[in-house]
């Protein structure tokens, strides 16, 4: 009987864990969308990543000149502050929300086209597993 019980347990736990992760993603989507006002058009993507110990998450994107963008960053980690920093490709820091109370969204007006590196991290006393999500939109 015992092996059967273990098998049954596995079949129950696997979908539960999957559902939990999916629920966290949905919760993040909802949270991030709150800061994404309708005047901004999404770039059609959701940048989603799982946090890992001692790792930052980054990507590179190009922002066009004469355009205003909104960047929204959210995390499922509650006991931590989400830091998002924007660098140019020469690693000059253009902005970090860590200097401004870790506010989750900021608007960026570019006079010229600039390729940027966006780095995301969660500052907490000890590592807590979770997810981060970023949304980018532009003002038409």
């Amino acid at each position: 009987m015992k092996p059967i019980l273990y098998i049954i347990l596995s079949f129950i736990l696997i979908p539960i864990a999957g559902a939990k992760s999916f629920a966290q993603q949905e919760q993040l989507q909802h949270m991030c969308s709150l800061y994404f006002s309708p005047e901004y058009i999404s770039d059609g993507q959701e940048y989603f990543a799982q946090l890992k110990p001692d790792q930052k998450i980054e990507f590179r994107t190009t922002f066009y000149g004469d355009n205003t963008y909104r960047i929204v960053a959210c995390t499922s980690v509650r006991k931590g502050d989400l830091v998002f920093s924007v660098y140019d490709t020469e690693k000059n820091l253009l902005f970090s929300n860590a200097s401004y109370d870790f506010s989750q969204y900021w608007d960026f007006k570019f006079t010229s086209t600039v390729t940027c590196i966006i780095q995301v991290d969660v500052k907490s006393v000890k590592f807590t597993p979770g997810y981060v999500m970023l949304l980018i939109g532009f003002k038409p």
Partner: protein
Amino acid sequence: MPSVFNKGTKILVVLSLLLAGFFVVSCGGSSDSERKTPIRNQVKPDTLSMIIKFDNSLFPIPSPYQAAALVKKNGIPFEDNLVNSQSNLTKYTTTFKKALNLGIYGTDISYLNIYERTPETIPYLTVIKKLSEELGLINAFDEKFFASLEKNMNNRDSLLVQMAQAYRKADSYLRSNDRKEMGALIITGGWIESLHILCKLATKSSDREIINRIGEQKYPLDNLIELLTPYYYKEPEYAKLIDAFIDLAYEFDGIIFNYSYREPRIDVENKLIQVNSESRVIMSEYHLKTISNKIELIRNQIIG
């Protein structure tokens, strides 16, 4: 047989414990964040931590809508022969081509919509509906979405917002269902069509701003190559597309970029960062012509 069964059982036990552990950790109590204190010191670039890319691997590329918006802003007249004909739909029998063309038609709709070509837009919505159904993306492009579009057909901004939301939903769905390569193809198709439209119009108008915008596609192209590379051996058609992109990237290497950092201005009250850094693109007519020809060849392979 019994020994195999026991081994399998042990694996399942370990798996179950791991999952149970994960579940317990995830369900752990949580409270509101601790009181936050503003840090006024500038954060220095962190070079010690390991850097990972966003694990959905959907590298961002600039939105195709912006390309269309620039063309309109610069007073370039609309050209109906630039978009992919909706009658080509029947030619797309593979998932590869369907996904790429879903991206292409998405950009076409933006182009038509920005020029307020409502009657021409309607058949394209039908094409998007068909392709999204065939690709299993019906939850993103659902009946509610199309009904809302029809209702707001004459509202240019509303259509753009809804299209962007649907593509975002599709992106999210594909990521959750481990179909990232399809998301990559949709993005790729959208980018190809934007570049095609920009090249055609730049060649005709010699508009400097549009030519610059073409030159600025160097990094987005690098991102696309990186995005598609994991699928190089999936099917021969992936390899062919990536090889064509690599060949195109060589042409972009000939474009000169000048960049100078300027300190940004931060408007705390409005939460607005004015990025003052300046960039300049120097692109010769030779490069415009070569890139234009190469992107047309790539596009023809996809829409044909």
